[in-house]
Structures are given as structure tokens and as C-alpha cells.
């Protein structure tokens, strides 16, 4: 029966934690790290370099997953993040490599493009009540088309084709080198740092700001939120807009890592981003979840890939195993209460 307040004991809190999605995600992570410790590929798993590379490889996905988390908490979905990554990677390369813009202009301009696309999806969803799946599916196709249109179907790289068909090479803009570099004595890449920054920004939004609370409220019960005076349409536009902004940052990182703007970049990344959020334990039904879960999900996927690749598991087996493990992780998450 119900008691009066303040009867939750320490043991109660511990058992509540053990049943929480966070504890379950931690357990999944522990299992995968344990596998890494056992199948350590002759000690490769014990070197910090392996872990640093894992973080670098997973950072772009992680940045997309941060935006995806905000959207999924409102019980929405954003299928356009992969295409937006490709589109903004092309835009950023075009501005910095072709047109030689300073990064101080090129980066904000790319952010504006990404955010505008997200806001457009959000507006379709909020104002015209189009289902998020459909609206962002359309944006996914549209942004991919825009990427190909803007780039002329070519990769935007430092090799510029001349009128006579020969190639002339321009210099790599310093900002590309910077994003690709490592800091802290080579122990952490800038891309990973940017990912952590996104996690912190998302945490502040979700846990510290009024509009973050509104994201949860809308995901939990949209009509109750509306009748409580929550500006539902504006909050949704905000969520998709933030997601677009994170896509633009991911696009910039992707361009810097590949030293080019590839209009085909980010194919099927939306699926990885959704998988990361779900493995972390954020509910696709909305109203529940958080950014720490997404951080855990990112690292789980990262270690999974890493353990398989250092043990030279072939790509075909790796894909099949990843599929199986996503299902196992989600089944594990579902068993609550």
C-alpha cells in the first residue's frame, strides 16, 4: 500500500537503480568489454590507442544520436540525419575548399543550413500534423537530392578538375586538419571532443532547461501537455531544429575526416543513430530516456565493432552479429519490473 512521503530507503534506491535502463545499458557494456578482455587480439585491446580509435570512429554516429535522442523523447523519429550529414558535408567542403571561406564563416553557414532543414521537418510535423516518419522520410530523400545537386554529383575534394581535364590540387584548409587532429598528447581526437560537447549540450537541454522538460512532457502525453499550456508546435520545431544542427556538426566532422564532401556520405547512418538510442534504453514510444543512455549506447556499438574488427571477423559476419546483438540488447532492456 502507499505510505506517506520519504520512505524510500537506501536499499529501495539501489534496487530501483538495478531495474533502471541505465543499469541495464551498463551491464550490456560490461559484457562487451569483457568479451574484449577475453578476445583481446594478443593484447591489442589493452592499448589505449584501440580505445581512442574506437571513440574516434563512433563519434560521428554519436553526434547524430544526440539529436536523435531529443527527437525520440518527443516520441518522434528523424530519418533524415544521414542525408543531412551528406548534404552539410558537401556544403562545408564547397564553402571551405572551393570558395576558400574562412572557417569562422563556413561553420556557422553550415550550421544554418542543417538547422533550417531540421526546422523544415519540424514545421511539417507540428503545423501540418504529418507523421514524423513520413515528414523526415521526405526530408531524407530531398536532402540527398540537394547534396547531389549542389555538388554536381561529384565529391568536393582538394583535387579540382580544370577545363582541359587535368586536376589541380588546392591546399587542405587548416580547419580540416584541426578537426582531424588529436589533443592531450595524442590521446583524444577533436572529433571525440566535439561528440562529448554535444552530449553536454543535450544534457543541459534535457535536464536543466524548461524546454527539455517540455520534450519529455510531449513524448509522454501530447494532449495533456497542450492543455497545460506547453507550446507543443514550437517545442517540436525546436527538437528537429536541434537535431538538424547536430547533423551539420556531424557533416563538418565527416568532411574533415574524409578530406572531402561526398554527396553519398552518411548513407544509412540514420539507422545506426536510432540503434544507438534504442540500445541505450531510450524508449521509442517517447517520454522516457536520456542523453547518458545514448552515450552508453554509442560506446556499446563502438566496442562491439572494435572487438569484432581487432579479431579480424569478416564484414559479413560482423553485420550479422551486430543485428543479433541489437536485438539481444533491446530484449534485455525490455525486461523490466
Amino acid at each position, binding site marked *: *500500500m*502507499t*505510505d*506517506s*512521503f*520519504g*520512505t*524510500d530507503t537506501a536499499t529501495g534506491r539501489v534496487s530501483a537503480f538495478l531495474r533502471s535502463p541505465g543499469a541495464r545499458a551498463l551491464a550490456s557494456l560490461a559484457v562487451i568489454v569483457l568479451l574484449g578482455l577475453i578476445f583481446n587480439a594478443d593484447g591489442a585491446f589493452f592499448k589505449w590507442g584501440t580505445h581512442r580509435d574506437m571513440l574516434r570512429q563512433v563519434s560521428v554516429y554519436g553526434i547524430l544520436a544526440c539529436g536523435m535522442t531529443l527527437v525520440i523523447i518527443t516520441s518522434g523519429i528523424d530519418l533524415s540525419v544521414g542525408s543531412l550529414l551528406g548534404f552539410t558535408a558537401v556544403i562545408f567542403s564547397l564553402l571551405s575548399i572551393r570558395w576558400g571561406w574562412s572557417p569562422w564563416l563556413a561553420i556557422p553557414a553550415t550550421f544554418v543550413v542543417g538547422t533550417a532543414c531540421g526546422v523544415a521537418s519540424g514545421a511539417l510535423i507540428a503545423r501540418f500534423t504529418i507523421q514524423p516518419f513520413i515528414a523526415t522520410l521526405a526530408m531524407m530523400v530531398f536532402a540527398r537530392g540537394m547534396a547531389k545537386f549542389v555538388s554536381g554529383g561529384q565529391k568536393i575534394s582538394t583535387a579540382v578538375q580544370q577545363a582541359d581535364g587535368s586536376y589541380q590540387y588546392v591546399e587542405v584548409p587548416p580547419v580540416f586538419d584541426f578537426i582531424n587532429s588529436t589533443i592531450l598528447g595524442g590521446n583524444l581526437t577533436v572529433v571525440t571532443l566535439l561528440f562529448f560537447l554535444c552530449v553536454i549540450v543535450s544534457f543541459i537541454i534535457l*535536464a*536543466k*532547461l*524548461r*524546454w*527539455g*522538460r*517540455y520534450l*519529455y*512532457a510531449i*513524448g*509522454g*502525453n501530447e*494532449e*495533456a*501537455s*497542450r*492543455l*497545460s*499550456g*506547453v*507550446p507543443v508546435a514550437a517545442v517540436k520545431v525546436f527538437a528537429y531544429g536541434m537535431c538538424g544542427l547536430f547533423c551539420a556538426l556531424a557533416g563538418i566532422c565527416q568532411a574533415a575526416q574524409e578530406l572531402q564532401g561526398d554527396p553519398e556520405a552518411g548513407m544509412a547512418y540514420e539507422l545506426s543513430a536510432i540503434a544507438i538510442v534504442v540500445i541505450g534504453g531510450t524508449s521509442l514510444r517517447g*517520454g*522516457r530516456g536520456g542523453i547518458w543512455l545514448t552515450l552508453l549506447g554509442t560506446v556499446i556499438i563502438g566496442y562491439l565493432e572494435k572487438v569484432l574488427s581487432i579479431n579480424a571477423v569478416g564484414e559479413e559476419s560482423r553485420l550479422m552479429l551486430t543485428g543479433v546483438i541489437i536485438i539481444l540488447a533491446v530484449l534485455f532492456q525490455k525486461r523490466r519490473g
Partner: protein
Amino acid sequence: MAENISKKSESSSKAANLLSMEGIGKSFSGVQVLADVCFDLNAAEVHILAGENGAGKSTLIKILAGVYDDYQGEIRLGGKPVRFKSPQEAHRHGISVIYQEISLVGTLSVAENIFLGRETTRAAGWLDTAGQRQQARRLLAELGLEIDISQPVEQFPVSVQQMIEIAKALSFDSRVIVMDEPTSTLSEPEVEKLFSIIGVLKRRGCGIIYISHKMEEIYGIADRITVLRDGCRVGCAQSSELAREELIRWMVGREISQQFPARSGRVGTVLLEVENFFLQDEEDPSRFVIGDVSFKVREGEIVGLAGLQGSGNSELLHGLFGACGSLASGEISLEGEPFRVRSPGESIRRGVAFLTNDRKANGYVPEMSVTHNITLAALKKFSPGGWLNPAAETISSRARADSLRLKAASLDQEMATLSGGNQQKVILARWLETGPRLLLLDEPTRGVDVAVKHEIYELMNRWTEQGCAILLITSEMPELLAMADRILVMCRGRLTEVFDRGEATQEKILKAAMGD
């Protein structure tokens, strides 16, 4: 079937008993919610299960229905011990539960719903559609319901959907039918209809377990009454031998002097003035859900809005609150200033609060904590510059929770884990947090137990003494007559009659509500 109505429930071994449950106990994560409860049911009997919210009624029913299979005690069906592992198994043994929420598939037809999951087939697995329809039509005719069974269920009003559920239960040849507050969404004539169907079921030898909070209903149909309190059985008696006062005492464990507190009735200046209010239909803007309604509400006044289902009284509150946006039009003034109905946010700023009649659908956010639910509508107050101030949220919500005597293990508890009455208190707390002058209350005591009902009445009195005004909708006549200072009666979107306190009677209101 034998007429063997035993006074005591201990006579469970007798063959006439359809069902007996003995020594039933159940605990959730270490908390005992039912302890040593006995309950039995005879053929051709309506046995009321009464008790406050959280008394354990739903848990007992869920054990019977096979939802929970880890319980102590024994269930005997027709003398034979049974232990159901799943709702399907309970169903096969002739136990049907009709829950408060309709559990039909809205897009499927009436006939398809009745036979869902056990479709009859002809050779080669083809659906026997014609046979099913014929059987469905026969079942519904027995209940005196003539509807087009090829129509999707969602096209029918809730009351008809409930009848369809009952028909579905009959199609299983269920001997034990459980109804969990079946009338909470029904209008008066529909309730009559349901009761006549219960009569039919009794004549067929079914036993009916009926959960209700409404006194009139309980004494209208009960043969026997069992009361639970805090997970224990308080008593069981023939309804003719149990006085109302005694029943209430059993339920709450203390005397409630009067069912309704006295209204002081000091009325001030006009707070809300509505002139020529119209509300367009969302689907068909050329139609009006509400046409040309004008009225005034004064400070300290409770104005009741009576009307049958479809009268538009609930829509009127939605429209006034801005929940329908620009579909609402009319000249409204609030505290002497013109008030343009635009959005819920604008209405909240102007001091209007709106408690809806469906907590689950649009009242609370189930995943969020009690605290976050309390502060939701007034969150700006707790987040200067957009940054949340959790300490201030905790202090305020604790004060609200204490003053409303909220029962919760912790204010960080998820809303979905509270009982109905406590959820209602949280939603009330949310609206109080916005500092309202005008409260729009749509069924504030729906699905709430006697003690909490009484508390809500007292709160309404307190608020009006502080100068607030209340527009009240309630489907319980005694509540309306006792609490409202004036009663506006609506019928098909129009105001048909206005009664002052004392002038109104149940008959007069019903007459006006039926457009007579």
C-alpha cells in the same frame, strides 16, 4: 439454477456457488496489497465489490481474470479448484471482464470484434463471415441492441461499444461477468439500458461482479455487497441489510457526517461573461457543436453545466479554455476585461484552469514524476530565464501535496503508479499552482473514492470562499444538485434552461436536458 443466496460468504463449498475465492493474498515487490480476502459469487446474482481507490478491488479482479498468477489462496470455479495462467485461460473458463477502458479494435466491424481471435472458418480456412454476422446479430438482439454490425466499432458512442463488449462476453458463454465501473462514461438513459441488460444476464444464470463508487447504482442493482479496505475484506452483506451510512463507514473506516459539505454561497461580482458563444465542428466547420450560448459566472459561485452525452457541455469547457483554437468564437470578458480565446497557454495566463474528464487521455503525463506533473502548467514560474529550479519545484509540489493530502510513497514516483484518486489530486495541484480565478472542472470526482470525493467537495468550497468561480460538469445528479449554486442545462449545443439552487430537481433537469 438454485436460489441459494447465502448470507455468509463462507458457504463456498455449496454447488450453487459459481465462484469462490478464499484466502487471496498478493504483494507487489514486497508490499502486501491484498491479504486473506474471501469473495464468492452465486448464479443469478449481482455482487457489488466496493471500496476506496487503492483498496485492492482491481488487484482482486485481475487475479480472477488471470492477469496475475502469483498469488496466495485458492479460487474455485463451480467447486473445482482452478489457477489461471493467462487471461485467455480465464476466458475459456467462462470469466469475462469488462474494464473501464473499452478494449475493442476501433477499425474492425462489430461482428469482427465479437469473434476476434476465434473466427469461425469453413473448409480450407475461409472465414465464415455470414455465420459470424448471423450469430452476432442474434447476440445483440438478446441485449435489445439494434445496430449495423458491419460498421466499424469506433463509429458508435462509448455506451454502445460497452454493449458490444457485453455481447462479446456472452458469446463466450461466460458465467462470471465482471464490470469495472461500467457507467463512468454513460449518460442516464444509457445506464438504465445497461441495468436492464444486467437483468437479462441474471435471468440467464450469470453471476455479475460489479465495481462502482456510485451509491445510487449500488443500491439500484446489488444483491450482495462486499467491501474491501486497505487490501482486507471489511465485510459482506445483503444489500437490503446494509444501510448507506454503514456502507460508507465500512469503506472509509470512519464516519462521514454528510455526503456533501454545506455551501456557504457568498457571491461577488461577475467574473466571467460569455455572450453569443459558438463552437464549430472540427471535421465539418459549417456545423456548430455549440450555438449561441450566453451566461455569466460570479466570483464565489459554482455553476453546474448539466446535459446528456452529446449535449456539448464538455465541448463548451474545451472551447472556453482555448483548446479548440479559432473554432470558438463569441464575446467573452474575464474580470471585466475582454478575453479572446486563443490557446490554453493564453487562458492559463489569464487565470483559467481546466480539469478534463479523462485523466489518462489528456490529464497527466504517465512517465513523469509527481513533482514534474504538478509543476507542468506553471513551469515558467519555476524556470526563470528558461533554467529549471528543481529545489523550488520540490518545495512547491510538496506543499501542494501536503495540503491536498496526497498519498504517494515519494514525489519522485512515476505518475502511472498512483491510484486514480491520487492522480486526480496531482492534476488539481497542477492547476492550483497556476493561481487560477476560474476553474473549469469536467467530472472532477470521476473514478475517485468516497473519501477523496468528499475532500474535493471541500476544496471546491474553499476555493469559492477565496473568490474563485467554478464551472462544474458532473454526471452524478446528487453531486450537481448539492454543489452547484446555479445549474445551466444544455441540449444539443444550446442552453435550454437555468435553475437556481433549490429550484432544480433531478426530474426538471433531465426534462430540460432531453430538450423537452
